[in-house]
């Protein structure tokens, strides 16, 4: 495929965004919401003040961790749909590691973060084993395990880890303040979380694009049969790829516990795993655009919280816009393919 001129690319990008806008307005028309006022409220809710931008960054951290993690198994042409469950499992392991402590400091926090990574990686390994040895398609193994992870959380919150007195959907007993991740100035986001997200971003860049491991993983994805013949160990490598992704997702879950909610609750993952899959598809699973798409999606997520308060609309509009945008990318991509084929056919 030849690369088109930058101006043409830019024009197609504009067309994609216009299509996304038109489709969003079209599908949300039955709600009777005023389109322009809604968009204004949405962006003001996400970018209106420093504290709101802090919240956007707090969403950006787990979303980016999940999305860049997803690139690793996708390099081997595998979809890790279980990323949502891996976030939850990371949060569970993190909470478990903190349960013996009433208070603590950096050491306990580091242990808890490590436990989160481990939890996510193990949950991903399970999905990977089912895929590699049980031949269960990763969509079903991953998705099923997402629901199982949610079930485990609910069981813990209502059972062994319930708050003294009342068990409720609001989660476990909050952590002591000494176990919270330190915040960035007055903003909700923790600088530790931000630093970890940037570090993982850099790490995965090196792993995928600058290491032999990444190159061989790509080979496994392109041609599994040849990879076996060249002794690249495709099975082991696929499992490793799953575990790297699960580790990143588990870290996101631990950060949700330590830095955002300060406890375990059923909605701990906030569906970031599914949103991250949309990010990955929108970026065509390339690393470069991922952090920026994550930032945009985070603005939508945070802004949409204002919709029920100010306009009486459901906050799921952010998900609708995200879905429509990714769908538009696919439509425009398909249309370009179709046009090119027509031109070639004369």
């Amino acid at each position, binding site marked *: 495929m030849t690369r088109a001129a930058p101006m043409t690319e830019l024009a197609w990008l504009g067309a994609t965004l216009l299509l996304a806008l038109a489709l969003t307005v079209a*599908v*949300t028309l*039955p*709600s009777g919401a005023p389109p322009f006022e809604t968009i204004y409220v949405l962006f003001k809710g996400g970018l209106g003040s420093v504290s709101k931008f802090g919240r956007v960054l707090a969403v950006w951290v787990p979303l980016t961790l999940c999305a860049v993690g997803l690139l690793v198994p996708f390099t081997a042409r595998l*979809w890790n*749909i279980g990323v949502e469950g891996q976030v939850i499992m990371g949060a569970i392991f993190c909470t478990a590691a903190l349960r013996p402590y009433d208070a603590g400091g950096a050491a306990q926090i580091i242990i808890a973060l490590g436990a989160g990574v481990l939890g996510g990686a193990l949950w991903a390994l399970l999905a990977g084993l*089912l895929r590699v*040895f*049980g*031949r*269960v*398609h990763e*969509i*079903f*193994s991953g*998705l*099923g*395990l997402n*629901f*199982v992870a*949610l*079930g485990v959380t*609910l*069981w813990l919150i*209502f*059972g062994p880890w319930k708050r003294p007195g009342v*068990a409720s959907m609001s989660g476990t007993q909050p952590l002591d303040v000494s176990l919270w991740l330190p915040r960035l100035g007055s903003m909700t986001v923790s600088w530790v979380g931000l630093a970890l997200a940037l570090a993982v971003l850099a790490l995965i860049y090196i792993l995928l694009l600058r290491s032999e491991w990444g190159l061989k993983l790509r080979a496994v994805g392109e041609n599994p049969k040849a990879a076996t013949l060249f002794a690249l160990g495709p099975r082991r490598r696929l499992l490793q790829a799953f575990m790297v992704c699960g580790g990143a997702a588990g870290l996101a879950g631990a950060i949700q516990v330590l830095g955002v909610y300060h406890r375990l609750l*059923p909605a701990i993952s906030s569906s970031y795993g*599914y949103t991250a*899959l*949309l990010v990955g*598809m929108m970026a065509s699973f390339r690393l470069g655009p991922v952090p920026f798409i994550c930032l945009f999606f985070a603005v939508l997520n945070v802004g949409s919280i204002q919709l029920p308060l100010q306009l*009486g*609309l*459901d906050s*799921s*509009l*952010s*998900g*609708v816009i*995200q*879905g*429509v945008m*990714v*769908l538009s990318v*696919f*439509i425009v*991509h*398909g*249309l370009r*393919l*179709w046009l090119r*084929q027509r031109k070639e*056919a004369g």
Partner: protein
Amino acid sequence: MTDTFALTLAGILMAGAPLVLATLGETLTEKAGIINLSLDGSILLAAMAAFAVSVTFDSPWLGVLCGMGVGAAIAGVLGVIGIYLGQSQLAVGFILTLLARDLAYFLGHSFSRQPGPDLGLWTIPGIGTIPFIGPIFGSQSPVIHLSLAAIFLCWWWMYRTEGGMRLRAVGESPRAAFGRGIRVRLVRLYYCLAGGALVGMAGAAYSLAVKPGWGRPQGCEGAGWIVLAIVIFGGWNPVRAALGAFFFAALQVSGIYLQEVFPSIPAPVFQVAPFPIMILTLLAVNMGRVGWVQDMVRRNPVLKRLSQSWSIEAPAALGQDFDPRKGL
């Protein structure tokens, strides 16, 4: 005692009705070679649309039609992008799942927790007094009758008509079908739409009969994923797929009983119980294709007999593009 048993069976038929409808829809679509991964969202959006239309026009049957339309429309989007624009069916289906789910919550906001009409019960005269059959079929929701009729119709269409032969041809061997003058892409699009309509009917069955009403959550979340697994479990055969759907419905119903036995376990835990079973079922189905398992089966006469009646083959061209311009 027999009455409790009959009532349990009736409960399984009811819980299974939407699963059966959606499973049959997806089986039709996949038989034509297209994977519609958008089921979970489609069911939810169709459920919302069906309920909203029923409330607005006070006509539940209009709601069912609307739900079918919504299901077909989503499948149509998938069909056009997947078949004609050559994009990944799995990716587009997954996007549509999330999109339809969020759209359902967004558009359904004002209908949340509202009272509304449902499909009510159909009373068949003369059956109610028959022991055992009476409690099951005497006075039941029409979705049960619809789902049972759909099983027969799907089987008959697939294996006893020329249309069904064309359907199987485009899914098994699109090139050969094309050579015989069948418009492969168009036939695939038709079955995408027809399957989507059945999936939409399943959504309407949820919001108008099985779990009447709309809210966030509605209660049918996750059903679509179970259905996708049942299609594989059923080996793309409508009758066996329907049996699989009733099997999962039985699990759901038994969950309600188990909850009474183990009151300390919170209710939401039972709602996720079908998912590990889904994974185990797929594991059991797929392990049959692994080398050492096949060897073991061949040596054991009992397992060998079993495996012959249990061979599962996916439609050969499932999920594959077909481009007529590339020739035969």
